[in-house]
C-alpha cells in the first residue's frame, strides 16, 4: 500500500505495461525527455529508449494514423494527446479508422490502441485546454471509452486498457493529476468496463466520472450533514456503459442526478437519463436531473469555477430531485 498521485499512478501503470509487453509503445508530443506536459510519461524514454517512447511530429492525425499502422504490425501503441482540445485534428483517424477497422476487416484487424486524453477544466488554462469531448467518442461505435477518477483506478485501468484488444479512449481528469490516493498493488482490480459504487446512500443516486467523482463525493458528505443520504456511483466506463449497478441503486432511491463537466446537451447524462428512465420507469420518483456545462464554449478561466458543476450545483439538483 502506498500513497501516490494520479499522474504518478499512470506513470507506474504505463511502466508496468511496457515491462510486461515489449510491443507496447508510447507516442505523442513531448512524451520523451520532457515526460509529457503533465509528466505522465516521465522517465519512460530514458528507460525504454526512443523506439518505444516516441516524440512525434506535431500532428495528431499523424499520431493516431501511424498508430493504426503500428497496430497492424502487432504493436500496442499508447497515444498521448497533449490536451483534450487537440484531439480533433485526429478525429477522422479515430472515428473512421481506429473505431471501424475491426468491423471493416470482418474482425481480422484488432486495433489495440489506447488514446490517452487529459480532459476537463479547472486548472486555470487558456482556451482549448479544458474540453470534455467524451460524448463524441462514446457515440462512436467501435471505441471503448473509459475515465479514471483516482490514482488507484488510474494505475489499473491504464494497464487494462493497454491489454484490451480494442481501441480505448482513455480519459484522464487533469485537474486531479496531483491528487493522492492509496494504491494497493497487490489488490485485484475491478474489471475495466465496470462502474463502481463509491459511496453508499439511500435517498438519491448521483452519477459521475472522472473529475466530477470527487466533487460528488464532497457533495454527498455535505448533504449527509443536512440529513440527505447520497449514493455516489463512479461510472468509469462511458462506452459501453455499465448501468446494472445504477439501476439497482435507482430502484432503491428513485432519484438520480448525473453530473459531468461536458455540455449537458447530448452529454453522457442524456444517454444515462434515457436508459434509466427506460429501465426504471416505475421506480423513478423524479426525472433524472442533469448537472453539467451550459450550451456555451468553455469560458475564460477566471470564471471557470462558476461554469463548472460544483458542490452547490450538485446539491441544488439533489434538492430539486427530492422536491418531486
Amino acid at each position: 500500500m502506498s500513497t501516490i498521485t494520479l499522474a504518478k499512478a499512470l506513470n507506474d501503470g504505463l511502466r508496468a505495461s511496457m515491462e510486461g509487453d515489449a510491443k507496447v509503445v508510447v507516442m505523442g508530443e513531448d512524451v520523451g525527455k520532457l515526460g509529457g506536459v503533465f509528466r505522465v510519461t516521465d522517465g519512460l524514454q530514458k528507460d525504454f529508449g526512443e523506439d518505444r517512447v516516441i516524440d512525434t511530429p506535431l500532428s495528431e492525425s499523424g499520431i493516431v494514423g501511424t498508430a493504426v499502422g503500428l497496430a497492424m504490425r502487432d504493436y500496442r501503441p499508447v497515444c498521448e494527446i497533449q490536451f483534450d482540445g487537440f484531439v480533433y485534428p485526429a478525429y477522422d483517424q479515430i472515428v473512421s479508422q481506429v473505431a471501424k477497422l475491426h468491423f471493416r476487416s470482418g474482425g481480422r484487424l484488432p486495433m489495440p490502441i489506447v488514446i490517452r486524453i487529459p480532459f476537463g477544466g479547472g486548472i486555470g488554462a487558456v482556451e482549448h485546454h479544458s474540453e470534455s469531448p467524451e460524448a463524441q467518442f462514446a457515440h462512436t461505435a467501435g471505441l471503448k471509452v473509459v475515465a479514471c477518477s483516482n490514482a488507484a483506478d488510474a494505475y489499473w485501468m491504464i494497464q487494462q486498457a493497454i491489454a484490451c484488444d480494442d481501441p480505448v479512449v482513455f480519459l484522464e481528469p487533469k485537474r486531479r493529476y496531483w491528487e493522492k490516493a492509496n494504491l494497493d498493488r497487490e489488490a485485484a482490480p475491478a474489471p475495466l468496463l465496470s462502474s463502481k459504487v463509491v459511496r453508499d446512500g439511500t435517498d438519491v443516486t448521483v452519477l459521475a466520472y472522472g473529475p466530477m467523482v470527487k466533487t460528488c463525493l464532497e457533495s454527498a458528505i455535505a448533504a449527509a450533514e443536512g440529513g440527505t443520504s447520497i449514493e455516489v456511483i463512479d461510472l468509469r466506463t462511458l462506452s459501453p456503459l455499465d448501468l446494472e449497478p445504477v439501476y439497482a441503486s435507482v430502484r432503491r432511491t428513485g432519484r438520480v442526478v448525473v453530473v459531468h463537466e461536458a455540455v449537458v446537451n447530448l452529454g453522457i447524462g442524456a444517454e444515462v437519463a434515457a436508459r434509466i428512465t427506460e429501465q426504471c420507469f416505475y421506480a423513478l420518483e423524479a426525472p433524472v436531473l442533469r448537472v453539467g456545462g451550459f450550451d456555451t464554449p468553455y469560458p475564460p478561466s477566471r470564471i471557470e469555477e462558476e461554469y463548472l458543476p460544483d458542490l452547490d450545483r450538485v446539491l441544488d439538483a439533489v434538492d430539486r430531485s427530492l422536491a418531486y
Partner: protein
Amino acid sequence: MPEEPEFVQLLTPEGERVEHPSFAFDGDDEMIASMYRDLVLTRRIDTEATALQRQGELGIWASLLGQEAAQIGSARALRPQDFAFPTYREHGVAWCKGIDPVALLSLFRGVDQGSWNPLETNFGLYTIVIGAQTLHATGYAMGVQRDGAVGTGDDDRDTAVVAYFGDGATSQGDVNEAFIWASVFNAPVVFFCQNNQWAISEPIDRQTRIPLYQRASGFGFPGLRVDGNDVLACHAVTKAATQRAREGSGPTLIEAFTYRMGAHTTSDDPTRYRLSGDLERWKLKDPLARVHAYLTRHAGLAEDFFADIEAESDVLAHRIREGCVAMADPHVLGIFDKVYAEQTEELAAQQAGYAAYLDTFETQTGAHA
C-alpha cells in the same frame, strides 16, 4: 501548369524499349510476358466488374482502366513480405498480391467491407477516406523498423511498405503528414501516387500548380515521375525505391503519370466535365498495347500466346461472375460480432434483442429469414 517534365520511360507507346540513365528494367522477356498476362487479366477483371455493376450485381465499381501498368509494374516489384496499402482502385496491385478477384467485389457488392486478411496477404483493406492509408503505411513502416526488418541485407527479411494514393489525395493533410513522418523517421515506405489527372471532376490543377513528384523535395526525400502507362518503367522505379526503403535509406515518392480512361466510378458521368479529345490522345498511350507490340515484334511471341491469355481471361471472367452472383448477403445479426475483438455485454444484449425482434417476423411471415 509549367511545361511537363521528363519522366522515366523504358517502353514507348509504340512498343520500343528505350534506355534511361538511372533506371533499367532487370527482367527478361519471359517476365515481360508474364506481366502482360497480369495486365490483360487485370483489365478483364475490371471489365467484368463494370459489367456486373451495370447488371445490378454490384452497387458501384471503381475502374482502373488505363492504370494497369502503374499497378502491375509497381506491385510486381514487391517482395512477399512487402506490405501494400491501397485506395479503392488498386485491383491490379491486389491481383499481384494474390487476392482473389472475387474477394475484391464484396465491398462493391455491399456484402462486406473487405474480405481478405491484410495480415496474411500483406495487402491492406481498400480505403475510401482519401489519404488515410498513407499514415497507416507510415506507421506500419515504423513497426518494420522497430522489428529490425530494415537494412539487415537479408532479402527475405528487409521489408518495404507501399502506400498507394491518387493525385487528389495529395491535398489531404494526412498525406502530407505521412510525408513528414516518413521523412523524420526515415521510414521504409514508398509513396506511389497514380496521377490519373482527375479527382472525380477536378483536373490536377485543383491540387497543385507544379508536377506532383516535386512535392517530395519539400519534405526532404526523393521524388520522381514515371510513365505510368509503361509497365517496365513502373517496375524499375518501384524496385529501386523499395530497395532503397529496405536498405534503410528512407522514403521515396513516385508519381506515376497516367490517365483515368473511364469514369471515376460507375456512378460518374465524365462527359459533364471533360473533353473526349484527351481520352483519344491517351488511348494512343495504352499500357497494354505497347507491351503487346513489344512482345510480338521483339520477343517473338506468336498468336497462340495471346490466345492462351485470352482464353484464361475468359475463364477468369466467368469465375468472377459466378463468384459474384453466388455471394450471399450476410446475416444482419453478424454485424454485432464484428465490432470488437472483445464483444461488450451491451452489444451482446442488443444482438439478442434484435434477434428476438426478427424472430417475431420469422414466426409470423418468414420475412426476414
